[in-house]
């Protein structure tokens, strides 16, 4: 019951504030530079909603591979105690595999634009 009242109060507050801001506030003028989408300070290169290039997809996939491998390495870094030989072998094999992948996609020219 208390939760329901909380929820109602929050919703009413949100509605009231946004309505008040719209009624009482100054009209924002969105022309010129002010209306441009903010993209790290650069003038935007494309319209929002434009399709990315197909080759961008390749970079995205490769990025995910090398990003996820960090997620696998994190447990090794934060675990307490001394790492033993088995862990070292597993780590080396895993990094070797990732390195092989990088070398392969490099050789195949997948890193070129």
């Amino acid at each position, binding site marked *: 019951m208390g939760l329901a009242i909380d929820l109602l109060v929050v919703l009413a507050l949100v509605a009231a504030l946004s309505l008040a801001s719209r009624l009482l506030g100054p009209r924002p003028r969105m022309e010129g530079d002010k209306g441009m989408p903010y993209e790290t300070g650069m003038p935007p290169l494309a319209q929002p909603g434009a399709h990315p290039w197909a080759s961008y997809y390749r970079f995205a996939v490769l990025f995910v591979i090398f990003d996820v491998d960090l997620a696998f390495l994190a447990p090794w870094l934060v675990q307490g105690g001394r790492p033993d030989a088995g862990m070292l072998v597993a780590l080396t094999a895993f990094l070797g*595999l990732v390195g*092989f992948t990088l*070398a*392969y996609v490099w*050789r*195949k020219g997948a890193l070129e634009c």
Partner: protein
Amino acid sequence: MTSLLVAPNPLPLLAFGVTVLAVLATGFARRRPGATARTIAATGLVVAAARSCDPGAMGLGAGWTPLFVAGALPFLALLPSAGEVAPALIASSVLGMAVLAWARHLFALFLGLELMSLPLYLLLARQSRERRTLEAALKYFFSGSLAAGLFLMGMALLYVSTGSFSLDQAVPARPAAQLALVLMGCAPLFKLAAFPLHFWLPDAYDAASPELASFMSTSVKAAGALMLLKLSVALGPDSYLTWILPAVGAATMTVANLLALRQDSLHRVLAYSSMAHAGTLILLAGTGGEGALSATAVYLWIYLFMNAGAWLVLRAGGLRRVSDLRGLSARRPILALLWAVVILSLAGIPPTGGFFAKLLVFLAALQADKPWAAAALALNGLLALGYYARLVREAFLEAAPKEAPAAETEPPRLVPILVCVCALGALWLGLWAPAAVGVEAWLK
């Protein structure tokens, strides 16, 4: 922490992985690798499968890998020799099946499922740049992802109700756990193209080359059957699955046989035929117990020979439509004879392996006290005869057309040899397997 892959000997699995890496490594060479990649892939897979062979019992583990590799070999051998990508994709698909076979943990099972499926979508999409092929590959990909998602949801639900991801537990009778099993079962049922999940099948098989379709309908279906058995026999011997699976299997067989009756494309007829056989396997998985296990193994080995044989005849003769078969007996009498052997075997006519395979399933259904399943099996045998008989009649009794169908390219020399091996294998298994399996013990 429990190990993901507990098996008596994990080394053969490592050999599968090393094979994939070795095939990819040929891509570093300056010259285009030609046949080297194919040779390395075939050798590596055969050696790894031979090392994981466990004579005596196939069980639910490593003993299945020779079956997967045998289904992949014709496809590997008939690849046009350009680049290392296709052999690497085939090898990693087989690696995924091996992971499935080794898995004793649900995460490993999922990893194997995805590792097996993702290369398949790519292999299908690489067949040609035609719209039809890409559409089929996309359909296959999306519906496969849906099945993988259902599996993950089932896995999460099972974890919530049992607190374990192990395959070495019996699932309790609570509804949530049972629902989890059914959701997970959707993934192998999709791979086997069971009745409500079969819509991707005709397009995918129609767009695929005969040797890719042969790989998809032998190795991949075997892996799907293994996964289904792992879920139903290992995880839920007394679950809903023992009632759902025979019903789904019977429905799959009936729908597939009815759809196959009116097809004009040979690829589609064989696609529905493979769906009907998958229905038989699903029915078998639902009967449960040790009997179902060994019967599935025997069925799959026989099916491997007769089905691969049928697809390879299409490749050897450059046949696409049912009417292309006309006059085959006059043009290429030996090929027509081998065609008749594999088709009669698929139909389950007595001296061939197909008859014995069907008999085993029939007996297993009776043993499991499901007479209605046995009746569905028998009726479907009659129904299937309708289109199998048509395939043989077109080849032998119909007059040849004025102009012979133009074969675009002469198939490699290897194709007729492989057809011979497959047809003779299907025939020989029908004569030898009954004694080897001890059919007298089954009949009692």
